[in-house]
């Protein structure tokens, strides 16, 4: 899958995962890489960039099993941005679907 395209969609994926649950960095990377092949190193820069845009806040929480973990929490701004992106994505993927069907039909 094309790298540029993947990175754009990645933002949306990260925000979507934070919609109902606060998560820490490792968790986010793991879930995403379970579903698609990404360079794990690209996620933290992405998180920092999204944080400077104020799409989420972060807080440290003590953990029983190890080091304190930094949890990310979606902000109202991030929630609005997510909604926008999901709407665009839905529209886009629907259009692609139709075009593919069209392509198949002409065969």
């Amino acid at each position, binding site marked *: 899958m094309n*790298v*540029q*395209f*993947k*990175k*754009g*969609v*990645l*933002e949306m994926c990260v925000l979507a995962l934070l919609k109902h649950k606060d998560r*820490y*960095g*490792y968790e986010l*990377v793991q879930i995403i*890489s379970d579903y698609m092949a990404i*360079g*794990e*190193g*690209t996620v*933290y*820069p992405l*998180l*920092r*960039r999204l944080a*400077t*845009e104020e799409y989420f806040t972060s807080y440290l929480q003590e953990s029983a*099993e*190890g*080091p*304190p*973990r*930094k949890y990310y929490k979606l902000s109202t*701004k991030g929630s*609005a*941005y997510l909604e*926008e992106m999901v709407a665009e994505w839905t529209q886009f993927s629907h259009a692609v679907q139709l075009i593919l069907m069209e392509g198949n039909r002409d065969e």
Partner: protein
Amino acid sequence: MNKQQFLQELTEGLKGIPDVERLDIIRDYEEYFLVGMEKGKTEAQIIAGLGSAKQIAKELRATYHLEAVREKPNVKNLFRAAIALISLTVFNLIFVLGPLLGLIGLLIGCWSVVLAMVAAPIWTGLQDADAVHAMGAFPWFGSIAICGAGILLGVILYYLSKWLGKGVVWYMQFNLSMVKGGLKHEGH
């Protein structure tokens, strides 16, 4: 390579970023390693997954400088952001460095003209006193008029420069997000 070496390489790559921010970034990656190892991964596996520390550092630097130039658009920050962007990929060399240099050249040219105009009375004063006196008040009024026009143009040029500076920042952000894939939303 082990965890310490990776973090060391990352730290070195992040030179130019303020200590507070750099330490925060290292803390994040340190956490990533510790949690990973807690879950049973080896340092080598984690490093293999993360990729190149140098590349990560470049990306983080570019993000930081771009944000800095948005907050405080002075020439120093502008240049740092441009260099950080360029180091990200050769692609940007053509699309960022070229226009930036062209724009700066243009601005320097315009400012030179304006400054020369404002200095007009000085040129008149430096001319041969007798020759100037023979032409009456004309040279003096003329040069004062040019000086005034220069000041007016200078004010316009000042605002133009500011506006263009903002344009360049926007342009570089656009470039950055093109390279990273996915357009940023201007929600500010």
